[in-house]
């Protein structure tokens, strides 16, 4: 694993059993994550983007080991510089590492316990890890609240007294309490209003610069992902369709699914209402995926090979990888010179 890499995921798989009937006999499996690989360097933001059910949440929950993956490696560099495979460790072995990677959740309303004060919520990771005395924790919480743009006096209040954006700031403060290196944020701005979304995105970028944080950022929103990411991973039915830097990916997509996502996006420009070519059909069912390339039933470029053979994720240019049989020959979007 390269020196500057904090997290490297290799061939991650998570299959959920599909059970049926009174005896809960297993009748199949949902391939929620099916052979996903990527790496994140120190200080970088890598995003997972795709439509609902494509496996973004499952991938991120495997990474923080909230669930046990079915297969693959999750290589994590600890603060001491040691590389461990989180996929192989037991819960007891993971516990002391936990303060290094923390999660921020989507729903700022249900992710905070309504009966705990803001102090109790934000200081929880400190208490769990036995860090500091009560007085030291209070200082730390005051400092954290200030860091995320809230007043220290709010410490004794309960979550109901805060707006969605403020609650998300509290969730971020909690994630930062034990000074983690890696933050996994699952749709952290999806439940927020646009005017508040921008505030939280700015805050996350500022904190990253200030504290040298590394982000795995999950979102279904391409525009949000474009705003915050260094690199973007487009997922479709549990697999990686394409990886690349945001602008390269969005201006010159190489996978027909990435192109389909971009053309489907409503454009805030009433002067250019597009006669757009939007994909037909619906996202494939991960419990019963199609043969070959999972996108082939909806793909306007599918050939026989696509129905038979699963395309591998291949590097087509430095920093860009695509899993499509026709990636090298197709020019999906017109390119403007210069």
């Amino acid at each position, binding site marked *: 694993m390269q020196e500057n890499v904090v997290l490297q995921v290799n061939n991650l798989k998570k299959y959920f059993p599909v059970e049926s009937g009174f005896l809960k006999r297993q009748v199949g499996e949902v391939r929620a994550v099916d052979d996903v690989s990527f790496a994140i360097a120190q200080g970088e933001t890598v995003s997972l983007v795709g*439509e*609902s059910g494509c496996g973004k949440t499952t991938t991120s929950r495997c990474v923080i080991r909230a669930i046990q993956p079915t297969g693959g490696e999750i290589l994590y560099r600890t603060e001491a510089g040691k590389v461990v495979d989180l996929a192989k460790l037991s819960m007891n072995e993971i516990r002391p590492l936990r303060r290094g990677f923390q999660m921020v959740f989507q729903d700022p309303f249900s992710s905070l316990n309504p009966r705990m004060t803001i102090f109790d919520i934000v200081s929880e990771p400190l208490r769990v890890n036995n860090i500091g005395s009560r007085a030291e924790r209070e200082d730390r919480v005051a400092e954290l609240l200030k860091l995320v743009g809230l007043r220290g006096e709010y410490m004794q209040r309960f979550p109901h007294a805060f*707006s*969605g*954006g*403020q609650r998300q700031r509290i969730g971020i403060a909690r994630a930062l309490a034990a000074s983690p290196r890696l933050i996994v944020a699952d749709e952290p701005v999806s439940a927020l*209003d*646009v*005017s*508040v*979304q*921008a*505030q939280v*995105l*700015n805050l996350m*970028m*500022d904190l990253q610069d200030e504290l040298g944080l590394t982000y795995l950022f999950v979102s*279904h*929103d*391409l*525009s*949000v992902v*474009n*705003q*915050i*990411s*260094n690199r973007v991973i487009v997922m479709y039915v549990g697999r990686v369709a394409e990886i690349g*830097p*945001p*602008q390269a990916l*969005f201006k010159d997509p190489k996978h027909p699914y990435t192109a*389909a*996502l*971009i*053309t*489907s*996006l*409503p*454009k*805030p*420009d*009433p*002067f250019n*209402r597009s006669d*757009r070519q*939007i*994909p*037909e059909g*619906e*996202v494939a069912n991960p419990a019963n995926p199609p043969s070959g390339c999972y996108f082939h039933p909806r793909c306007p470029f599918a050939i026989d090979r696509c129905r038979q053979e699963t395309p591998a994720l291949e590097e087509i240019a430095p920093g860009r990888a695509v899993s499509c049989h026709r990636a090298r020959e197709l020019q999906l979007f017109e390119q403007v010179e210069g």
Partner: protein
Amino acid sequence: MTETRLRDAMPTAIGTPPDAVAPILQVQNLHTHFFTGEGIVHAVDGASFAVHPGKTLGIVGESGCGKSVAAKSILQIVDKPGRIVDGEILYTYTDKSGRYRHENILSLPSDSRQMKSIRGGEISMIFQEPMSSFSPIHSVGNQLTETIRLHTDMDQRTAREAAIEWLSRVGIPNPARRVEEYPYQMSGGQCQRAMIAMALSTNPRILIADEPTTALDVTTQAQILNLLQRLQAEQGMAMIFITHDLGVIAEVADEVAVMYLGRVVERAPVQEIFRNPQHPYTRALLTSIPSIEAQPRQRLPTISGSIPHPQNRPPGCPFHPRCPEYMAGTCEQKEPQLASVGTNHEVSCFLYPGC
């Protein structure tokens, strides 16, 4: 079919005929409040907007600004403990005897025959969560057939055929078989298609669509938006399209009403809203949306603070605590009114004379 619908919208008998651009629905100074144990929530507090025949009015605003409550007020289906306390909703239509009418439908009792025929007949509504708009214990086909029978004089068999025809029009594959399915057997996108079929099966003159694509994925959203636009052109109906997404507004709306804390703060044709926004809130909203074309890793301009709860509505202009143009001594003292700032362009802000 288009032609008859368009002709229906015109007066056929007595009354003053409206000119071609007269609105078919005009909401004026609507106030809908919730009388809760903790106090009065001013969910809609003086909202005014108009809908023109065959056109789409987009209502845009952030969560809690009163979009859904305003829409439900039109049909008099506001949830308890809410009540419409003031305002007028003028509806222009032709009655069964071909008589042209221009009426304040807020004065009709909610359970009157006339209001019942307007609700779900002439004006129908689709919601964000299609699944919860269907009854879980009846098949989609039965619910569709029932709706058609309620608003037409078709017999059971003809209505069922019409139901299948509608499922096919909204793009549900194998409609003759799918008509037997229950809502839970359909995907979110297909359920929304079925909901649209149900809402349009009575040939409404106005369709109110309340965030119909918010719960859907982008590719499904694009399909549903195309479907709605195609059906609107075929039926010649007017649409009120509610969303918090300015991108969706840019794709579907002819005219836009921007709401903030229960009021319309700006209204204008869609191109005008994007090219020449006048209200500080509209301007701020437009610059704070992330874009797929922006330079990554750049800070976005933001609106400071957050939306106050409508129970703690700030005095004066409701936007003043967050407004970059705030003028002390004026903005928190008086309530600005909508006033014209250009052709078909109205704003409610003290930066402009007449407000």
